[in-house]
């Protein structure tokens, strides 16, 4: 079993008829993802990529019962798209949209908490359970089904990590991009907890970066839970200067908080195997797993 999504997950695409959404929806369909509907206000009743299009998520849910929604809408419409999906009863929302205003996201997070909805992102490449379902924009072909869980705050760096793992013959159970924004939904702690009880997953690779406290929280969680599976971590941004935002809105060392050094120290203390060279994520994972029965 993977986490969050599997071959049966029924997926809705919010903003389906847009250019980017269309492109990625096609890739998802090719990958085998079970897309069941799209939503674009004003285009209800149309058929796009063979999928029925609805004006509202509510209508789409009534007609096609998706459990998962992937959001491709403009930044200023992002928070409302999340709220709409949450209120309509979607249980897992994957928000690809980048550049959603911070206060909008605080509001959207209250909604997902109120409705008990799992949110991935925003500003995430999404997630994939290789061989089963891809709900995201990552290149599907680099993945292989396997036993390594991946949780990452980054996009392309995750592809890099996945590629290294696959090259080493290590497949993935589920790879989740949690998004690079200051406020995102599921973070390391929640996902580590899901991987903990996932039988398919034998080890977890965390890809962190500077900014925020998510890695520190993960370290605390791992320590407190006596985590039963090996965890490896690479934290990007050791060379980052304080006070400067490195691309991701969340990747900024503010005052004394959020430096890569601190995060690495905390994770190491919690028993996590630290990867210093980002080109050796695959190699080190393979070594660690082969050292175990």
């Amino acid at each position, binding site marked *: 079993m993977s986490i969050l999504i599997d071959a049966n997950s029924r997926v809705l695409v919010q903003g389906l008829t847009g250019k*980017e959404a269309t492109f*990625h929806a096609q890739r998802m369909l090719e990958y085998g993802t079970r897309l069941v509907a799209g939503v674009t206000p004003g285009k209800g009743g149309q058929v796009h990529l063979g999928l029925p299009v609805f004006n509202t998520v509510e209508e789409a849910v009534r007609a096609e019962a998706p459990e998962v929604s992937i959001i491709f809408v403009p*930044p*200023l419409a992002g928070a409302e798209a999340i709220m709409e999906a949450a209120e309509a009863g979607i249980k897992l929302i994957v928000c690809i949209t*980048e*550049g*959603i*205003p*911070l*206060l909008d996201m*605080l*509001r959207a*997070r*209250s909604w997902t908490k109120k409705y008990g909805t799992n949110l991935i992102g925003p500003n995430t*490449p999404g997630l994939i359970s290789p061989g089963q379902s891809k709900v995201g*924009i*990552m*290149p599907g072909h*680099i993945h292989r089904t396997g036993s390594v869980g991946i949780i*990452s*705050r*980054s*996009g*392309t*760096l*995750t*592809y*890099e990590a996945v*590629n*290294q793992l696959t090259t080493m013959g290590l497949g993935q159970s589920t790879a989740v991009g949690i998004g*690079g924004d*200051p*406020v995102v939904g599921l973070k390391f702690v929640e996902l580590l907890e899901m991987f903990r009880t996932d039988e398919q997953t034998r080890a977890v690779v965390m890809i962190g*970066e*500077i900014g*925020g*406290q998510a890695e520190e*929280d993960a370290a605390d969680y791992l320590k407190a839970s006596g985590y039963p599976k090996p965890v490896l971590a*690479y934290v*990007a*941004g*050791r*060379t*980052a*200067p304080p*006070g400067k935002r*490195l*691309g*991701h809105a*969340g*990747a900024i060392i503010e*005052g*004394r*908080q959020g430096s*890569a050094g601190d995060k690495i120290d905390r994770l190491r203390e919690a028993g996590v195997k630290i990867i*210093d*060279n*980002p*080109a*050796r994520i695959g190699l080190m994972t393979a070594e660690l797993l082969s050292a175990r029965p």
Partner: protein
Amino acid sequence: MLIHEFQAKNFLRELGWRIPASALAESAKEAKRLAIELGCPVMLKAQVLAGGRGQAGGVQKASTPEEAERLASRLLGSRLITAQTGAQGLPVNSLLVEKAIGLKKEYYCGLAVDRRNETLVAIVSRQGGLNIEELSGSRPELIKKIYFDPDGGLKQFQSRQLAYFLELPENLVKDFVARMKRLSEFFLEKDLKLLEINPLAWSEDDQLLAVDARMDFDDCSLARHPELAALRDESQENELEKRARRFGLNYLKMNGSIGCLVNGAGLAMATMDIIQHFGGQPANFLDIGGGVTEEAVSQAFELLLSDSQVVSALINIFGGIVRCDLVARGVLAAASRISLNRPVVVRLEGTNVAEGRRILEESGLPFIFAADFEQAARLAVELSGQPR
């Protein structure tokens, strides 16, 4: 997006806050005239978009109009280097000339996003003028935080708690509460990420005074606040960074010799890290982003090479949304405009990798192809003259 102190104070004034009498001077003569008008002593405050101005000599007191003129002529046109600006500093194009006012007490007052708790927070401290983060480490008992959410806003009883924590005199409590109400509404309406009044002061004439102010607006929200976007002072930005922003690129100048062009912020950071891991020094952070065009890639590459510190370049692309062929075409477009006089290591992977590589190979230009991430980094470091 940070705005200048004088801009922030204009907002505060509109919101009913008292601020010391002040005006902006762009020449030493004007500074003198203002010093006469306002009455000495005055403070001369360099308007640069960075903290730490005081320690860096960017805030000076003048006891006479002549001293004001002399100090102003020294400050204006200079570059101020503070703990937050980097080695190049920021240009001082204007000074806020402000009446120096006697203060009984100084406090800190701030509104911010608390990303960990996913909510907003109002923070006050009984000591002002200092760095709130340092203070919260060393003297947490001086600090009080109240959390509030963006929909409900800051309640009056919460502001009262802050006021009484500060031990404000009773006649200033109501002022404080009323002003915090409007301040927090402004914060929400204008999508701020951080708003600081530091110091907030109890003046000798028993007023509540905003002596210095800092406002940081959410760049993501500027599209719905054109009036805020108009406040941007581009003179405070690095020329290269400014050019990059115009093309939607995330570029940050560093001090090394290896220019990097990467897609994705995480991979860009990792590229910088691995360069250092192998003994090199990155010249920049450059993320071309996901929605990049050929034109933007071309601009990015040109920009990268326009940094004279760059000895070697590293193009590291893991195609996902971004297609390798698009990047290759963009790079070629730039190469047709400028001379490729420095070695360029290329590592392509992912979407349309074969096509991308073919385009670069067929160009006949001397790109150096790497098989993987590690090899690419090693080569770039080697070629930068700083082998391991």
